């Protein structure tokens, strides 16, 4: 559906002509639950040959080899998110190809876009989030995937709804990326210190101002922080309505003095127990819980975000061959499973999921129950460039 249709639906919902359920169903946002059900292990969509023990372990040259007769060059620059790649995966790639890989972690998609717009970045591979493809596509910042160079990529194994985000223009079948993983935006809390029940964004923002004042962090990221403040009031995560944004801004400003920090680097304070509650992404939540079992991850019962990150090739990159080699390497299910053993975000490629151990697939943080996802929304493309939300965020930061 295009933006106009979506807007009509959304207006209907807001004006009460249709109820939330219908809206979610019609807009496809509620499909999130269905998708995830398909992606979640144990469903019928998964391939039948699923060994119970992990067919994991380190990928070797038997699993993947670089394309023959292609000069891959010496270096590759990957711009990505923090704590998102198994260092060993990168090392193995270097061992197999001789290409030195440089990981460049950034803080937000906005920052990624800003640097790409300025130009001259020298980046080769990008890990953009689902809602950015519209903008990247229209500005010609990404290269359409050359599937001839990606023999290990089988798009049919990927959930089509998640994959569709990388299509530009919509419905054209031209893909500009393939999924690395997906996840949700929820929050973590340290149950050693947090005794009151916290299940929703209402709890999150309310308790931040009272019991856990000075111990809570939110993302330094307008999409999720404003989004979840909107959810607090029962509005859509993606709202750009002026009145709703004003209320969200009001809430955020009210909460600000009670925050420990506004940061997307919340792992250090959570680990040091400087913070007890943090707005968190799935993969960080899983990592924290694995190291510190007292830290629990919660998907807000009143809503939130579901997202997917992709691998993409930057347009006009100098190291195109190496970029495609890397993408092909990461398309191998065994490599995905191995990578995921570190970053702990759920995978999209059904073959990759099949290779993960029962323990991993049973991890409720990584692979939550479909029921928890029913209220979550994908971020919409316009949020990346929407001036109103950017201004709200800037005003909030300056307040």
């Amino acid at each position, binding site marked *: 559906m295009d933006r106009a249709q979506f807007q009509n639906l959304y207006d209907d919902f807001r004006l009460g002509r249709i109820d939330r359920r219908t809206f979610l169903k019609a807009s496809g946002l509620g499909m999130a639950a269905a998708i995830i059900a398909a992606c979640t292990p144990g469903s019928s969509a998964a391939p039948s040959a699923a060994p119970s023990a992990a067919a994991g372990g380190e990928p070797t040259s038997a699993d993947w080899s670089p394309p023959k007769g292609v000069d891959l060059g010496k270096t590759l620059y990957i711009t990505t998110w923090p704590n998102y790649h198994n260092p060993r995966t990168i090392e193995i790639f270097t061992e197999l190809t001789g290409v030195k890989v440089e990981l460049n972690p950034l803080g937000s998609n906005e920052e990624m876009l800003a640097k790409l717009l300025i130009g001259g970045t020298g980046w080769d591979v990008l890990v953009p989030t689902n809602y950015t493809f519209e903008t990247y596509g229209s500005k010609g910042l990404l290269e359409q995937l050359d599937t001839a160079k990606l023999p290990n990529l089988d798009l049919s194994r990927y959930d089509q709804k998640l994959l569709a985000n990388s299509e530009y223009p919509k419905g054209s079948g031209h893909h500009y990326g393939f999924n690395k993983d997906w996840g949700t935006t929820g929050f973590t809390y340290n149950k050693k210190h947090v005794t009151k029940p916290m299940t929703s964004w209402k709890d999150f923002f309310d308790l931040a101002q009272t019991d856990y004042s000075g111990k809570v962090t939110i993302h330094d990221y307008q999409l999720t922080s404003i989004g979840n403040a909107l959810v607090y009031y029962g509005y859509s995560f993606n709202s750009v309505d002026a009145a709703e944004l004003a209320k969200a801004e009001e809430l955020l400003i009210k909460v600000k003095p009670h925050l420990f920090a506004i940061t997307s680097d919340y792992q250090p304070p959570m680990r040091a127990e400087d913070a007890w509650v943090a707005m968190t992404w799935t993969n960080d939540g899983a990592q924290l819980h694995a190291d510190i079992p007292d830290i629990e991850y919660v998907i807000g019962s009143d809503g939130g975000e579901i997202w997917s990150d992709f691998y993409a090739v930057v347009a006009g990159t100098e190291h195109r061959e190496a970029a495609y080699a890397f993408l092909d390497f990461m398309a191998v299910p065994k490599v995905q499973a191995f990578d995921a053993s570190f970053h702990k975000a759920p995978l999209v490629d059904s073959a990759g999921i099949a290779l993960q151990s029962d323990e991993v697939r049973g991890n409720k943080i990584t692979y939550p129950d479909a029921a928890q996802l029913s209220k979550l929304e994908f971020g919409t493309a316009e949020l990346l460039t929407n001036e109103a939300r950017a201004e709200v*965020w800037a005003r909030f930061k*300056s307040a």
Partner: protein
Amino acid sequence: MTRTGTGRWRSTFATVLLLLPSATWYALLLLVPLVILFVFSFGGRAPEGGYLPDFTFANYRELPTRSTAFINALWMATGGTILCLLVGFPLAYYLATRAGAGRTLLLVLVIVPFWTSFLIRTYAWLTILGNNGIPAWLDALGFGHVVLLNTPFAVLLGIVYNYLPLMVFPLYVSLERLDKRLLEASKDLGAGRWATFRQVTLPLCSAGLLSGVILVFIPIMGEYIIPALLGGGKVFFIGNALVDLFLQSRNWPFGSAAAIVLILVILAAVTVYLRVGSRGGQTREISLL
């Protein structure tokens, strides 16, 4: 020594040659970028961010929305400068007048911390001010739970920590040049320590004072890393606002306007300082260092 016609021409040629490298550098890497900023500040914001050729004053009219960030920076810059002065002057005075033979070493010791990365030093403060650092001790001593990190206090501390050497150095240079005989004379004439200080020392080191204040105040106005690291996103300087405008909201025209105004304000402040400072009677050139 007189100069003939060709001699004068050659002399001018030599002057131009000496000046050319710096002049070209400044032109290319300072003036041109500033002109670009200036042009951008009158432009519009492209829908996905960036610059759209246009001519409007809207960006300058919008500037008051960032006034809080600006005032935060001003506040901290002033406070930080005063603190650096209060803390740094006694040290500089001690080194210049009393420390004797060891003073070069001690002076160097002030600047040695500069040779660890500024980021690492600031990060070390995160540990000290974090939950397992000083607050833990304060808790043990019975002061209850004190939050030190991500507060204006932490940012101020970081500022003083990082800019203290820049205050101590010019003060030291200026105090060191002080003719000790003047102090002796003052003492011999029966003036107490405080009187001597007020009427002899202070006026004579005004150049150093001025330099120190300027060297500390100006960079703090443009600072963004210390508030980002030690302020946890809760302390927002105009520097942070600029970074946000260019790297997050990608509103280049607005960012350019803010940047230009910031530069003008700092320029004005410096001019005022220098005028006021050299009002003290000395007509010699005040050097920045």
